[in-house]
C-alpha cells in the first residue's frame, strides 16, 4: 500500500477528530451565549475575551470533580455507557466529505477519512448504536430516574429512527446512491436537495432533533421530571462525556443535514471559482461554506431549544408514529410517481 496515502488519511482523521472536538467544545459556549442573547442577557464573558476560554474552564471543572460511583452491580456497564456515547458520537465524522479535493504535490487529496459506498447507512447505523450509551448508562446507574430516562430515550430514538429512515428513502430514490460524497457532488451550485425534497428535509430535521435528544424532544433528561435523566448518577468527566457526546452529536447531525439537503461544500459559482482561482482556493471556500451551513444548523438547534417547550410523552409518540411516518410514506409515493412519471404515462397510454 502506498505509504503517502496512510499519512494523508492519518492527517485527515486527526484534523477531523480535532475539529469535531473543537466544535463540540465551542457549541457548549455557543449554547450558553445564544441562550443568554435570546433572554436579553449577555452570557458568560469573564473567562477570556468574550468568554472564549469558558469551555476550557468548564472542562477543567469537570475534571476536578469527585468521581462518584453509585452502589451498582453493573460497575463495568456504568463505565462503558459514557464511552459508547462518546465514541459513537465521534465515529460518524469518518464518512463525511468536508470538501471536494485539494491538489497538492501533483496528487489529489480527498477531504474525507473514508469514502464508503454505504456511508449514509453507516451514519444511521452508528447513530442508532448511540442509544446504547444512554440505555446502558441509565440501566447501570441503579437508579429509577436514570432508568426512566433511559427507557424514554430508547423508545424515542427507535420510534424516530423509523421516520428518519423513511424520509431518507425518498431522497435516496432521487440520488440513487448512499455515498455522501456522490450526494454532495450531485448538488452543484444551488441545486440543493432541500428544494427538491422539502418534506423529506422537514421530517429529517424533526427526527434529527429527536435523535440528538434536544429540546423539544429532550424527554430522556428532562430536569423537571427526572432530575437529570440517564446521567443523574454520573459525575466528573463521565458526566462530561455524556454532555460532550450530546454536543458532538448535534454537530454531526448538523453536518449530515448540510451534506444531505443543503449541498454540503457546494456553493453558487464554485465551478467559476475552480476555473479562475484554482482548485485549492475554491475548495477552501467550499469548506468555509460547509462550516457556515453547519453553524447555521447548530444555531437552529439552539434557537428552537429556547423557543419551544418540551413535548409531553404521548404527544411525542403521537408525532412520531402517527404523523411523521405516514407523511414520509406519502413522500416516498409522491417521489416514486414523479421519478417514474414517463413510464407511468406510457403505461396509461398517454
Amino acid at each position: 500500500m502506498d505509504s503517502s496515502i496512510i499519512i494523508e488519511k492519518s492527517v485527515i482523521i486527526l484534523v477531523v477528530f480535532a475539529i469535531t472536538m473543537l466544535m463540540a467544545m465551542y457549541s457548549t459556549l455557543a449554547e450558553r451565549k445564544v441562550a443568554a442573547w435570546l433572554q436579553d442577557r449577555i452570557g458568560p464573558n469573564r473567562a477570556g475575551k468574550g468568554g472564549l476560554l469558558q469551555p476550557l474552564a468548564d472542562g477543567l471543572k469537570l475534571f476536578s470533580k469527585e468521581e462518584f460511583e453509585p452502589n451498582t452491580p453493573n460497575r463495568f456497564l456504568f463505565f462503558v455507557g459514557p464511552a459508547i456515547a462518546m465514541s459513537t458520537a465521534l465515529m460518524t465524522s469518518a464518512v463525511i466529505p468536508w470538501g471536494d479535493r485539494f491538489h497538492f504535490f501533483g496528487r489529489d487529496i480527498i477531504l474525507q477519512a473514508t469514502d464508503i459506498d454505504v456511508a449514509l447507512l453507516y451514519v444511521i447505523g452508528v447513530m442508532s448504536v448511540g442509544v446504547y450509551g444512554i440505555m446502558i448508562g441509565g440501566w447501570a446507574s441503579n437508579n429509577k430516574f436514570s432508568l426512566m430516562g433511559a427507557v424514554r430515550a430508547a423508545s424515542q430514538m427507535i420510534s424516530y429512527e423509523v421516520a428518519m429512515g423513511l424520509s431518507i428513502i425518498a431522497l435516496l430514490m432521487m440520488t440513487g446512491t448512499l455515498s455522501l460524497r456522490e450526494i454532495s457532488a450531485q448538488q452543484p451550485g444551488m441545486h440543493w436537495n432541500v428544494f427538491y425534497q422539502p418534506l423529506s428535509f422537514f421530517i429529517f430535521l424533526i427526527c434529527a432533533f429527536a435523535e440528538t435528544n434536544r429540546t423539544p424532544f429532550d424527554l430522556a433528561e428532562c430536569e423537571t421530571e427526572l432530575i437529570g435523566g440517564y446521567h443523574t448518577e454520573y459525575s466528573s468527566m463521565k458526566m462530561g462525556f455524556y454532555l460532550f457526546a450530546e454536543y458532538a452529536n448535534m454537530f454531526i447531525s448538523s453536518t449530515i443535514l448540510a451534506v444531505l439537503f443543503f449541498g454540503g461544500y457546494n456553493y453558487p459559482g464554485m465551478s467559476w471559482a475552480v476555473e479562475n482561482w484554482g482548485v485549492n482556493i475554491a475548495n477552501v471556500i467550499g469548506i468555509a461554506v460547509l462550516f457556515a451551513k453547519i453553524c447555521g444548523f447548530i444555531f437552529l438547534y439552539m434557537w428552537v431549544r429556547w423557543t419551544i417547550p418540551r413535548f409531553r410523552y404521548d404527544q411525542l409518540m403521537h408525532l412520531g408514529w402517527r404523523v411523521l411516518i405516514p407523511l414520509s410514506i406519502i413522500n416516498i409515493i409522491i417521489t416514486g410517481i414523479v421519478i417514474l412519471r414517463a413510464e407511468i404515462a406510457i403505461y396509461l397510454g398517454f
Partner: protein
Amino acid sequence: MSIEAISLSGRKKLVSNKEMTFWERMYIVAIVKGLMITIKHLFTRKVTIQYPEEVREMSPVYRGQHMLKRDEQGRENCTACGLCALSCPAEAITMKAEERKPDEKHLYREEKYASIYEINMLRCIFCGLCEEACPKDAIYLTTSKVLVPSSYDREDFIFGKDKLVMPLDIAMKNAQLKNAN
C-alpha cells in the same frame, strides 16, 4: 347592566373551546411565530448590569446608612429624646441619655445628649421613620451606597456612635459651604 358584561380588570376574555383547524393542529404556524419572537430578542438591548464594573443606579429616594448629624459648629444635634426609638417599627434603636457637663458645650448642642446610641443593622428595615420622627434634625438616612458589611459575628451589626456620628471634618466642610453660599 348584566353580570356578564362587567369586567373588573378590563381584560376579560371569553374562553373558547373551538376545535382547532388542520393547520392549527400542525402547530407549524405557531412554532414559526414563536421562533420570530425569540429571534427578535437576539437584537434587543441587553439588560445585564456588569456588576463590579457597572453599578446599578439608585433610586432618588434611596435610603442608605444612618448618620447622626452635627451642626455648623460641629456639635451633635441629638438630644436623646427617644422619639426615633419609639417610632422605629423594627425596634432597632436603643440609646442612653446623659446630662451635658459645662465643659462639653462644644460637643453637644442641647443640655442632654446620647451617651450610647446603637442601631441594630440586622433589625433595621431602612424605612426612614426615625428620620421623620426626629425633632432635632439629628438622624438622617444618607444616600451612601455602602451596604452593611457581612460578618460572622452578630456584635458587628450593632452600630454604635463611632460608626453613626457624622465625622467632624465633614461637618466643618458643610459649615464652610453654607457660609460661602
